[in-house]
């Protein structure tokens, strides 16, 4: 356990170092939600069913979107590392295989949390309100999503081993997940079948939970449901990825 923690820390520290050395990506990661906030948010004012302040509807969803994307696309950096021979070099050392995953996923989660908090802070002047307890719960939810999805992304990357195969698959996967999560518009306004379909999407639960939390209802059933569902997704993702890391990587 000590070794796992120590090795994870080493991998995490290296990944953070790399992140900070390519600040362009950190910058883009922060700018994208800001663009949504500034250029898309105002449109929501005229949409019925959203309630008084559109940002109270929109920011919780945007946070979910941010966490899906920040998790899902980490596979690309892993493929680059595979190509550079870095993974192979690590695998010949006694480093814990699980640490290779945890260190990487942790750096993704930390980056996401920083981005998420920034987004919330920027949105406060627009009329967003939130209490500290529910905010922490929301951040926990986001961390679960990023953990689960970065793991899934790593596992797929280790399986496909090529950007050319990974890119279309992730695009194919991310768009319906996002649309069916009701990030942009309320799902219950649509046709019944669409709503029914969206209920199979774990992120629909996450979006609902996130909105309930920002609205100040931490007791809402969607909150514990989302935590359980996404906790399960994270466990499955981490298990899958940990196995992939342990197995032979070309």
């Amino acid at each position: 356990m000590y070794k796992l923690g120590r090795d994870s820390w080493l991998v995490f520290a290296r990944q953070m170092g790399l992140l900070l050395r390519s600040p362009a990506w950190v910058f883009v990661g922060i700018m994208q939600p800001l663009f949504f906030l500034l250029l898309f948010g105002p449109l929501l004012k005229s949409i019925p069913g959203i309630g008084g302040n559109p940002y109270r509807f929109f920011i919780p969803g945007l946070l979910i979107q941010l966490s899906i994307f920040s998790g899902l696309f980490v596979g690309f950096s892993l493929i680059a590392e595979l190509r550079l021979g870095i993974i192979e070099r690590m695998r010949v050392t006694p480093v814990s295989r699980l640490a290779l995953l945890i260190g990487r996923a942790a750096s993704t989660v930390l980056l996401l949390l920083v981005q998420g908090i920034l987004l919330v802070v920027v949105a406060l002047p627009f009329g967003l309100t939130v209490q500290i307890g529910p905010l922490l719960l929301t951040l926990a939810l986001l961390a679960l999503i990023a953990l689960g999805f970065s793991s899934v992304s790593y596992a797929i990357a280790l399986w496909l081993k090529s950007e050319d195969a990974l890119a279309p698959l992730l695009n194919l996967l991310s768009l319906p997940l996002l649309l069916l999560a009701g990030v942009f518009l309320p799902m219950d306004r649509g046709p019944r079948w669409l709503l029914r379909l969206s209920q199979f999407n774990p992120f629909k639960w996450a979006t609902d939970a996130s909105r309930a939390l920002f609205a100040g209802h931490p007791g809402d059933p969607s909150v514990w449901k989302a935590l359980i569902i996404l906790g399960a997704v994270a466990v499955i993702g981490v298990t899958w990825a940990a196995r992939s890391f342990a197995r032979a990587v070309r």
Partner: protein
Amino acid sequence: MIETEGLWKSFRGRKATVEAVRGVDLSVQEGEVFGFLGPNGAGKTTTLRILATLVPPDKGRATVAGIDLRRSAGQVRRNIGYVAQAGGTWDQVSAREELILQARLFGIHKGEARRRATDAIEAFELTDFADRHCKTYSGGQRRRVDIALGVLHRPKVLFLDEPTAGLDPQSRAHVWAEVRRLRADGMTVFVTTHYMDEADALCDRVAIIDQGTIVAEGSPDELKREIAGDVVTLGVNGAAEKATDLLRTEPYVRRVEPADAMLVPARPNSPAATQLRLYVDEGGTAIPQILRLLEGAGLHLASIELHRPSLDDVFLEKTGRSLREVGD
């Protein structure tokens, strides 16, 4: 130091199954530089990856540093260093940072890791560039960093996969010097190469691998001595067939072969197709006789060359193909 028995590995692809390694038996002694020589695709990397615990073999057994590969892969890892052909460093990180991280991954604490990195930088002469990002290094510099990373934890066995492929002669010499230094320190080095001069110059013993099986094993001198006699290469100006017929029946000629020609049917006009390779008992006495015979038959030689058998001749003898042509 390394013993293998019947190692076997095949890769199942979408279209066909590739049998990369087909029953490799090896024995590497402690403290030697062991060369694994073979053309591209022969199965060198796959064998190395099996021995370095990266891929499990389908069949066969192996011990590395006296430890069973299958039973205690983790224990093997503590005793080996592995330098892949691709290297394995991040672009935006310096050699020093990589060395420190590598030491720490082996469980060495921070202060000691720093010290080891500094020592390695000195020993491998990385001082000039150790604090620059790896992407700025030349091919030779990168190789030295890779090797330094591979031996930082002082392994008993070092695996090097084609350490000089694509390097200029000077960097090559530098890498060879590092390998010799490691051997002098008592390390066992297992190095793959498709350059026979490298196997010849650097290795105490060599195993020649072709299509997944070992075709010869021994010291370079032993292997060459197996092909007793000398090799004469004749430039025959397109009269290869006639010259072959004439020479074949001479008592001092053991074998006549078009030099490399069987490999280049696609290139009938290549200069190789006009050269013959003769294996003779003794070059010094054979040459005058060859000259007399061919001149007498009205054949004019473009060139004649006498040389001691090289590892390439050994490869040719064992496989019927030339390493020069199969390689690359």
